[in-house]
C-alpha cells in the first residue's frame, strides 16, 4: 500500500522499543490516521534481539504484521545482523553508530548516527535512547507530526521527566537533520 508506512524497531530487551512503537502508533492516531503496533514475545525479549513493529496508514490496515520495512531501526549489532535484510530496497536503515554494518545491505538509504551516545552523554540518561530514536524516525519519514509525537511521548512518560524527554526528542530530530 502506497499510503502505508511499515516500521520495525529492533535492539535488545530493555531499550524501550515496544514503548517507542506504542508512542509512534499513538501519535499517528492523534494525527487522525490508523495504526497497529505489535511485537515478538518469547526468549527474544530477554536480552537477545527484540523487536517492535508499527504500521501507520491513511486507511484501514488489514494484515497487522510487517513484512519488509520502510524503515528499520537497529540499536544493537545482534539486532542489525538479524534484521538488516528485512528492510525494503528503497527503505531506510537507521542504525546506532556503534553498529558495524553487515555486508550486502540492500536498503536504499543508510543512516548511521550516535543514538546511544547522545542518550548517555548529551541528554544524560541511557533510557531515553528510544525517545531519541523515534524523534529521528519522525524527522526522516514525517509519518507523524512533531506536535502529535510530543504529546504522545508526554502522555506516556513518568511525571517529572517531561523536559528530559522533550530534550531527547529534539536531539533525535537534530541527529538526522542532514540525511
Amino acid at each position, binding site marked *: 500500500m502506497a499510503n502505508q508506512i511499515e516500521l520495525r524497531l529492533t535492539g535488545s530487551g530493555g531499550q524501550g522499543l515496544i514503548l517507542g512503537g*506504542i508512542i509512534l*502508533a499513538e501519535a499517528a492516531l*492523534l494525527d487522525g490516521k*490508523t*495504526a497497529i*503496533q505489535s511485537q515478538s*514475545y518469547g526468549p527474544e525479549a530477554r536480552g537477545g534481539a527484540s523487536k517492535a513493529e508499527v504500521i501507520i496508514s491513511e486507511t484501514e490496515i*488489514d494484515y497487522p*504484521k510487517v513484512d519488509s520495512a520502510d524503515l528499520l531501526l537497529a540499536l544493537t549489532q545482534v539486532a542489525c545482523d538479524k534484521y538488516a535484510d528485512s528492510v525494503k530496497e528503497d527503505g531506510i536503515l537507521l542504525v546506532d553508530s556503534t553498529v558495524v554494518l553487515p555486508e550486502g545491505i540492500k536498503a536504499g538509504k543508510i543512516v548511521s548516527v550516535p543514538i546511544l551516545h547522545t542518550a548517555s552523554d548529551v541528554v544524560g540518561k541511557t533510557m531515553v535512547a528510544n525517545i531519541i530514536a523515534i524523534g529521528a524516525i519522525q524527522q526522516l519519514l514525517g509519518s507523524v507530526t512533531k506536535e502529535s509525537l510530543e504529546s504522545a511521548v508526554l502522555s506516556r512518560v513518568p511525571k517529572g521527566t517531561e523536559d528530559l524527554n522533550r530534550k531527547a526528542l529534539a536531539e533525535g530530530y537534530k541527529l538526522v537533520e542532514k540525511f
Partner: protein
Amino acid sequence: MKKNNIKLMQGNEACVEGAIAAGMKFYAGYPITPSTEIAEVSAQKLPRVGGKFIQMEDEIAGMATAIGGSLAGLKSMTATSGPGFSLKQENIGYAALAEIPVVIVNVQRSGPSTGLPTAPSQGDMMQAKWGTHGDHPVIALCPSSVKETFDLTVRCFNLAEKYRMPVFLMLDEVVGHMREKIEIPDASEIEIYDRLKPTPGDENYLPYKVEEGQIVPAMAAYGDGYRFHVTGLIHDESGFPSNSTEVAQTLMTRIMKKVEDNINDIVTYEESNTDDAEIILLSYGGTARSAKSAMKKAREMGLKVGMFRPITVWPFPEERVKELAKQAKSIIVAEMNYGQMVLEVERIAKGTTDIYHVGKINGEVISPDEIFSKIKEVL
C-alpha cells in the same frame, strides 16, 4: 484521538473493557500466555467497579470458581490459552448441563501441550465444540480486531445470560496482543442482557422449570433466599438427580434446542464481494485480516474473489455457507491449524463446490501472499 474515548489498545485489554461494560463483576482464573493481560487488567479494574478478582491455584479451579461466582449471581469470566482450555473442559461440561452462564476466553496459541507458548494458532476450534464429553450446546465467537474483541465480549456475556450456558470467546494471539485503534462506545449505546430471575417470594420456585414463553429456567442466586440444588447429574425441574430416561430425554433435548431453535439470534457473520464471487475465502479471527488483504489484491487484478467471515463460529453459519457453496466455484478456507473449520465447510457443502485449505502449524501467521498464491492455484 482528539476525543478521549479513542485509544490505542491491545485485544486482551479490550476484552476486559468489554467484559466490564457488559457487567462482569467476577473474574477467576490462572494466568497463562498469551492471555495474561486479561487477568492483569481484570485484577486492576474489577475492584474499581465493585467487582472481585481471584487468582486460583490452577485453571481447573479458575473455571470452577467462575461457575461459583455466577451461581452467586455475578456475571463471571475466566480467560486462558490451550493448556488451560484443556484443563477447564470437565467444568465446562458441568456449566453446560447445570445451565450456568459463564464466559470463557481462549487466546489461542500453538499446541498441542505447552507447544509454542508465545506463538499464534487457531488450533482449538474443534476443541471448543467437542472438548467436553457428552452432547452439549456450544456458542463460540471469534473476533478479528481490537474493537470487535470489545463488542463480542459484551455479546458473549449477553448470550451466556440469555441462554444460561458457557460461551466461548475464541481469540488468537494475533488479535489478543496487537494494539489498534478503538473507540469505546458510550455505556448508553451498549445493549446488555441480564439473566432471568424468579419472582421474589415465589414459594413454588423450581430451579429448572421453564416458564411459559421463556427459553430457559429463571435463575436464583445463592443468597437470594431460595433453596435449590445444582448438579452435574441429569436432573428434573427440582434440580435433584434423576435416573429416568424420560427426564434425561426432556432435559437433554431442551438444552440442545435452546441454541438450535435460536440460531438466527446467535449466528452472525460478515461477507464482502460475495455477490459475483467465483472464489470465496472463508476465514475468521486474526487470519481473516490476511484473507481480506488477499481478496483486495485479487479484486484489484479483476479476479472475482469474495470473502465470508464467520463471527459466530459455533454454531457455524450453516445456512449461508450452504448457499454460498452452491454459488461459488470454490471455497478456500484459511486458518492457523492443520484443518479444522474446513471440515465443517466440507460437511455443509456436501460436494457442491471445491473446498481448498490454507493452513499453518508452525506458529507463524498466514500471510496475505500465501492465501493469494492459493487463489492463483485454484483459478
